[in-house]
């Protein structure tokens, strides 16, 4: 399987994107941004469609739309976009825009399917390099801002009282998230970014006791999901995204069951 170039690219790009999604996903969960992440992927879909319409690379359109979306959300306030109604309006409008741009362009239906559901097998060596560079930059920024981001994500009241620039942290994180989503859309597709950004982190929450361990476990689970997905997809010809989400969901329910059992049999007062 690994003697094919396209599988090598898929494994390298998939692993890198999974590490990034696993790490950033912990803060997505802590900050309650899972549905905003989902909105970003829809914004990204319309961005990729727009890029196709004007003759750009889809990643350029993805990055343009998601980063502008992040700045708009940051400017208007995350609270506004957490509202159920706001999210459903955004999802619908951007999905509609994506369909409009696609209908105006000359792209075939397979392109739509690639953007919506991802295509790990169609990644070129140039794509791999772009993904590597973006992920390294993103992880470096996440490491540099780790302490402040952790404080603001896990104890927002304390962070504000300690004089942290909470508005700046919020907008900066949304920008990082938008770049992460733009990268991941190419691998797992707009509809499943949500899965890779939230399920491994949710699973890790049930089996770890510290934030750092949660990041490590979440990244490991995301990487395992990509590896399992690629391998099974290669063997069976079924879509890779199905295996990734099925694996992550299985891990989640196992962790949930284990955590419930642990709580049930834990002696009172410990």
């Amino acid at each position, binding site marked *: 399987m690994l003697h094919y170039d396209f599988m090598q690219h898929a494994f390298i790009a998939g692993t890198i994107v999974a590490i990034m999604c696993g790490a950033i996903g912990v803060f997505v969960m802590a900050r*309650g941004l899972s549905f905003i992440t989902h909105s970003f992927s829809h914004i990204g879909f319309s961005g990729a469609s727009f890029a196709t319409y004007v003759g750009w690379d889809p990643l350029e359109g993805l990055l343009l739309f998601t980063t502008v979306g992040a700045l708009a959300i940051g400017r208007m306030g995350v609270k506004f976009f957490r509202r159920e109604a706001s999210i459903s309006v955004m999802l619908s409008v951007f999905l509609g825009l994506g369909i409009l741009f696609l209908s105006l362009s000359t792209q075939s239906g397979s392109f739509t399917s690639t953007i919506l559901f991802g295509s790990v097998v169609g990644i070129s060596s140039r794509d791999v390099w772009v993904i590597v560079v973006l992920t390294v930059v993103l992880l470096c920024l996440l490491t540099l801002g780790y302490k402040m981001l952790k404080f603001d994500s896990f104890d927002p009241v304390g962070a504000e009282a*300690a*004089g942290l620039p909470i508005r700046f942290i919020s907008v900066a994180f949304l920008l990082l998230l938008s770049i992460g989503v733009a990268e991941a859309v190419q691998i797992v597709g707009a509809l499943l970014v949500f899965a890779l950004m939230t399920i491994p982190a949710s699973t890790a929450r049930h089996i770890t006791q510290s934030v750092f361990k949660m990041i490590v476990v979440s990244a490991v689970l995301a990487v395992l999901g990509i590896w399992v997905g690629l391998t099974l997809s290669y063997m069976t010809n079924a879509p890779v995204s199905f295996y990734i989400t099925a694996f992550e969901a299985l891990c989640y329910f196992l962790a949930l069951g284990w955590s419930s059992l642990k709580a049930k049999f834990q002696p009172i007062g410990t």
Partner: protein
Amino acid sequence: MIENFSVDHIDVYINGEKILDNLSFSVQPGEMLGIIGPNGAGKSTLLKVILGVIKPQNGTVEMTHSDTRPIVGYVPQSRAIDEEMPIQTWDFISLGLPHRIRPWLTKKDRILIKETMELTDTSRLAKKSIGKLSGGEKQRVFLAQALVRNPDVLLLDESTANLDPKAQEEITSLVQELCTEQHISTLFISHDIHLVAKYAHRVLYLTRGHYSVGRAQDIIENANMDVLYQPQHVHDALQTSVENRRYGG
């Protein structure tokens, strides 16, 4: 140690309504100033002004330190913490350390956290998840997080309000001890007149648009507390305060 901490002639309007009117007072290093007053009198607003979260329309908050920028610690009544998130007490307290780009903790940081946990009697909770702690334990952890910064000024916003009387006493007494030892200027808001009378060196009584500052017994005696508290409670509190001061209780 802080050299000067004073609030000078501040006015604060919220939604066009004057909440604080020409308010001035100062707090000495190691002094505990109790803040009392009815709901909506501007007690929490005052703490937010000191924290820099709300800017006063007029007046200033002066804080000067002998060597560096003064550090303010804050303990609110409650915190929006997701109890499902796996953050251990030790990790939670470390969040309060002064912020540097370095993502890891140094040996000095670890010693500081350990000492703060010993001071606040939270060492035994180090490995426990914050969501699994009782109300009293959580308040001790919040206090530890504020103290780990080595603050010059400590602000407590009804931080013991949700606790039983025994836990309230324990925590307020601990705060008083630490503030005196470490020369921290402390402002604490409470609706419990007994607690304020017993532990505050001075009291700031705020009502909408008016205020008075002075010794606990003088303020409680002169202020019109009937609106706020049962007269019998005020009398009892005053009695306890006077007796404590007389007999060193």
